[in-house]
């Protein structure tokens, strides 16, 4: 001991070889002891838990085991069971079609739904698993149009024409933004600028006339009316005064963008899309259908129901709300106050309102705002509302992901000369979305379950089906556990799969390897 203090010099002459870690005591006994009986308190908890599980199992297993699968009504079930504890699964057999497809979808069309679900799996695969060949994404892009035709029926030419017009719009965008020379684009920008400027001026002029009309019909009787009259007149005067300057300003702004082509190509393709969908869509698909009719019997939206309706709403709304949410999140980070403001107001408004309110708006209120002759599909209205609702939430989740990225990533992208679109697409979003996966999946699962809320606005989804036609029928009037348990099982299978997929995806995208 005393020697070592006087001799501090030490030189290692040989390396200590690496050795295996000490044998951890393992095996089932060790596991049980560690996890179940590691102390007095835990032992008591284990015993109590065993007791509860056993009591539950003693009741539930016979209930499943004795279950009656073949009966025409609950009364018959009870007669077969004859006082024994058992479930009446016969309701599932009897009403299987209603639970899955709803009670109005024509049975001879069930194959269409089944086929579109199978194709959905094929279409989703390349989007979900990046190891699959990228060419399959073409089918993914085509799938919505095919599925629309399969589920709703009608002429195949309608979705195909819509697809064609969308492709034409994208081609026009590409043509104007990058294919044509600056001189030609200058001419195009001039033409588009004149059209848009004149159109805007005309709209403002019409608006001003409307405002004058409203002001006059409000009149000047009483204080409130007088104030409203004044306000409407001021707005009208503004509109009158600024209609031509605004038209010139906007038209010139569009013309002025001819050099890099960003604004003019967006405006031109939007203009084309508007005109094409208003005037070309109907004649084209009707003409094509007259030449080569490819039709399935049409099914109205109000005839959709059962779990199919939940799947329909869930799939469409999730796949629409993620891109919309990304745009909103990026918009909220924009340095441009107008874009930022619109996004903030939209997100905060939607997040402040319960989904059920939005669904009532979709169901009832929209009818007041839309022109009386417009026939706006109920499912479409519901899809829009649910999509907007979940997009607002997804936007906030993604904003969190964007905020979590170190500022250095933006700076590195900038310093390499990437422009905003490239930096966002190649550097920022891949990382921000990866961080946001748990949150996005959380919203997606919540949204999928929230689709059952449509039962409140008298749509017959799975829950609506159970609460309505099944439980109100004389045969199955007081069957609860079997049908709701079945509904819960269906939702659990889908939601659990989504959750497992997201965890797998997170592991795939983990590149830190620490």
């Amino acid at each position, binding site marked *: 001991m005393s020697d070592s203090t006087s001799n501090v010099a030490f030189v290692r002459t040989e390396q200590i070889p690496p050795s295996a870690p000490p044998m951890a005591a393992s095996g089932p006994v060790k596991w049980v002891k560690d996890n179940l009986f590691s102390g007095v308190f835990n032992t008591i908890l284990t015993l109590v838990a065993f007791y509860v599980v056993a009591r539950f199992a003693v009741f539930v297993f016979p209930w499943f085991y004795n279950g009656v699968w073949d009966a025409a009504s609950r009364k018959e079930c009870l007669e077969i069971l004859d006082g024994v504890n058992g479930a009446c699964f016969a309701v599932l057999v009897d009403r299987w079609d209603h639970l899955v497809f709803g009670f109005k979808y024509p049975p001879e069309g069930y194959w269409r739904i089944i086929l579109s679900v199978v194709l959905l799996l094929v279409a989703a695969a390349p989007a979900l698993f990046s190891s699959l060949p990228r060419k399959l994404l073409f089918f993914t892009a085509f799938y919505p149009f095919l599925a629309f035709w399969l589920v709703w029926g009608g002429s195949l030419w309608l979705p195909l024409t819509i697809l064609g017009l969308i492709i034409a719009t994208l081609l026009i965008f590409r043509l104007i933004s990058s294919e044509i020379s600056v001189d030609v684009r200058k001419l195009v920008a001039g033409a588009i600028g004149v059209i848009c400027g004149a159109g805007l001026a005309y709209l403002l002029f019409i608006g001003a006339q409307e405002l004058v009309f409203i002001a006059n019909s409000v009149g000047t009787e009483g204080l409130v009316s007088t104030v409203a009259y004044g306000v409407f007149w001021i707005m009208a005067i503004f509109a009158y005064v600024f209609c031509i300057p605004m038209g010139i300003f906007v038209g010139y702004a569009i013309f002025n963008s001819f050099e890099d082509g960003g604004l003019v190509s967006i405006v031109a393709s939007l203009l084309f899309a508007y005109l094409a969908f208003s005037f070309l869509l109907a004649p084209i698909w009707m003409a094509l259908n007259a030449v080569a009719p490819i039709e399935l019997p049409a099914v109205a939206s109000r005839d959709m129901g059962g779990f199919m309706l939940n799947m329909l709403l869930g799939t469409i709304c999730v796949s629409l709300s993620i891109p919309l949410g990304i745009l909103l999140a990026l918009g909220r980070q924009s340095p441009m106050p107008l874009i930022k403001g619109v996004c903030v107001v939209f997100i905060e408004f939607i997040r402040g309102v319960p989904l059920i309110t939005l669904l009532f708006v979709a169901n009832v209120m929209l009818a007041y705002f839309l022109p009386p002759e417009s026939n706006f599909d109920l499912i479409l209205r519901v899809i829009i509302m649910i999509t907007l609702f979940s997009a607002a939430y997804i936007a906030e989740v993604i904003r969190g992901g964007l905020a979590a990225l170190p500022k250095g990533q933006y700076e*590195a*992208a*900038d310093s390499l*000369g990437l422009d905003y679109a490239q930096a966002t697409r190649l550097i920022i979003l891949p990382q921000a979305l990866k961080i946001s996966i748990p949150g996005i999946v959380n919203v997606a699962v919540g949204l999928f379950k929230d689709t059952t809320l449509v039962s409140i606005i008298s749509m017959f989804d799975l829950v609506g089906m159970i609460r309505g036609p099944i439980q109100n029928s004389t045969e199955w009037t007081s069957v609860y556990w079997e049908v709701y348990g079945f509904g819960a099982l269906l939702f659990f299978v889908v939601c659990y799969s989504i959750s497992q997929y997201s965890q797998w995806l997170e592991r795939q995208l983990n590149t830190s390897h620490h």
Partner: protein
Amino acid sequence: MNQQSQMTVSDEVAIEITNMNKWYGTFHVLRDIDLTVQRGERIVICGPSGSGKSTLIRCINALEEHQKGKIEVDGTVLSSDLKNIDKIRSEVGMCFQHFNLFPHLTILENCTLAPIWVRKTPKKEAEEIAMHFLEKVKIPDQANKYPGQLSGGQQQRVAIARSLCMKPRIMLFDEPTSALDPEMIKEVLDTMIELAEEGMTMLCVTHEMGFARQVANRVIFMDAGQIVEQNEPEEFFNNPKSERTQLFLSQILGH
């Protein structure tokens, strides 16, 4: 020091900064900066923290906006026009203190990204260029790993290679060795020295005074947002004129 004679400085102006001022809110970070950099010059900028040296080089590629004065890079005047900014950025490479590699891309993808998307180089050619520069910084065998699997020194060398893949005419270094362990500093400095010997125009914010003596042809000392003193390295270190510089040098070279 004997390398200095081999490294040539041409008469061509690479960067010209005239009367440049910058404020953060009401705080005046850069004051009346005048600086002309000839092509091929190797400039080391030093100074106490908060003196504005990082801000100065970040203004050159518009990562920071200046409010007054003029910055001209390779004949292009830096304005708020995004086109000009992107053009300058693709000609000016930059290395950061914390490397800022893209963690979701492999080393090779980090290096090919900008050439492919900004320069529109075909992928194959971009990969060849990337491998060339990865060999130059001596880590071609790491090309298919992710940044998270590399050491700090390796990451900084990748960051240098990534900038070089854009074939920049000017390189900016913002404290490239400050976040590194002492053992790794040398490998990064060696890479930078090699770059300097090839005649790259370099502006380097660093406290590595040995590096400054060896490769710089000019050392700039900044304090409180102003250029206090600039001189050739020998003169600067052996015979500093201003009191502030003397104090600074005595503090960093004192032990």
